[in-house]
């Protein structure tokens, strides 16, 4: 299966929900941008089309542009041809109102990963069965460490020698 065929398939399945499609370098990662409002519908249709599990769920913080991009990277176990590709179902949400809907009831494999996005970015997934931090302890999760305004400082390379 060629990447273009997958793009055609995605366009056929999602119809006019698709805003933009991009094939990234390597020709195996296809990013499909959709509207935040149509994510549940799109996910359900993609699942029917053979993308049967979520490879991972992630978010990227574009602080300067004031948005979060949430990406569900879908792939297939059943369909050998599709399994070569990863389709990233991506949508943007505003950074000051980090709320979206959960896909945990459509993709069970997304359940823990949505919790991870929640703890890292503070994005609330409505309808998630058990939304709480997965890896971090609650006080740490409150600081939303994966956002870009949480800065981890690295040490400088030049050291001032101490007197022993």
């Amino acid at each position: 299966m060629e990447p273009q065929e997958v793009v055609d398939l995605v366009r056929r399945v999602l119809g006019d929900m698709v805003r933009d499609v991009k094939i990234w370098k390597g020709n195996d990662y296809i990013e499909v941008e959709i509207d935040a409002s149509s994510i549940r519908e799109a996910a359900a249709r993609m699942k029917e089309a053979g993308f049967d599990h979520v490879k991972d769920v992630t978010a990227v913080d574009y602080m300067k542009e004031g948005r979060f991009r949430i990406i569900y990277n879908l792939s297939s176990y059943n369909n050998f041809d599709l399994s070569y590709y990863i389709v990233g179902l991506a949508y943007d949400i505003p950074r000051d109102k980090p709320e979206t809907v959960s896909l945990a009831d459509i993709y069970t494999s997304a359940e823990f990963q949505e919790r991870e996005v929640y703890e890292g970015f503070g994005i609330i997934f409505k309808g998630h069965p058990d939304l709480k931090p997965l890896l971090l302890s609650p006080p740490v999760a409150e600081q939303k460490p994966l956002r870009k305004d949480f800065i981890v400082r690295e040490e400088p390379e030049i050291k001032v020698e101490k007197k022993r």
Partner: protein
Amino acid sequence: MSGIVRGNVGFNDLKIPGMWSRKIGKDLYEVFIGPQHPGSGHMRIIIRIDGDIIVEAEPDMGYVHRTMEKLSEGRAWIKAIPLFERMAIHDACNVTLPYVRAVEKLLGIEAPLRAKYLRVLLCEINRIAAFLYGFGIFGVFLGHSTMYMWPFGDREVWVELAEWLTGARLTHTYPVFGGVRRDVPEGFTDSLRKAIRYMRRRLEDYRKIFVDNPVIRARLEDVGVIPRNLAIELGITGPNLRASGVRYDVRKNHPYEVYDELDFEIPVFQEGDAYARVHQRVQEILQSLRILEQVADWLDKHPREPVMHERFWKTAPPLYKKIFQETGRVKLGAVMAIMKIPQGKAYERGETARGEISYYVESDGGNKPYRIRIHSASARNALVYKYIVPGHRVMDLPAIYGSIDYFPPEADR
């Protein structure tokens, strides 16, 4: 906390920072397996039992979380390699290779053929070592102390080989952008062939004392059955997925390095229970040995040639080339530390011993990653606890834990 809270203190009145409290069902007994529990590793599984039957199980991960995604955002691209390999140090090459490949994809380069073979070589050595490690943990979970010691002892053979090749026992940091860091030393392939033959012999011993042992069979058969559909739905991965009858292996479905040139097959079992997972791993070790034999043959036939991509090797001073020809050690260019990666996104995955690991790498064109999302095999498999464990007996928990070869540091990242 001293003593027991008495009187009519409501459940919700108990507010301890960092802790939740909640009501559980009547007649249920809540047992915390971990994190200081001998059978848990660095994680906690909260189980609620009714008699001897687990009715609810909840994995509580994160005890060895090292914030790798965040840390990698603050340092140069190449510095993330030693960081990521600490996810699963006995599987270091498999774990870091997809990241290296993702960055290579962004750079638009590919490693030379010899480097690809060397990567596969270390990947398979790591894979066997990691399987043996898993067997050891599995054995001790079932109370089988010999199956704990034997695989750990035999793993030493592979660790020894890896150390010979890379110079470090576990944290090899072997693949780097554009190639690998060492070429095979002299006499390496002979020892490798000996190790392959030795391992085949030992697998027969394992079969006798562990795999075909009636006690072990009784413990594992029909325990922790993951039906095919559920395995796909939960996104289980690796040998656990294939033991449930799904034909999926990244080495076949999305071949990387030279896996598409090598002759091997992926075993698939239909049963989906813990015992099938044991057999799955035994078969996969055999396949890895088969791959290693072919790699050894290839390396013997081909003389030493640069194992670094032209882009970094063309400008290398003569000293570098001399050192490489004499000792097989690849000197890194100073550009590695300050290298800028072109803007873009890449998604790369690889088959580790425990299953599929995937890296989503995004670059804004700077000398540091903009965002790296890692999702490791054990993190995918963690859902098993929530959805498969309930309904089993308490004593089945270690059997399931061991059979899915869960490795907390890998899951916690």
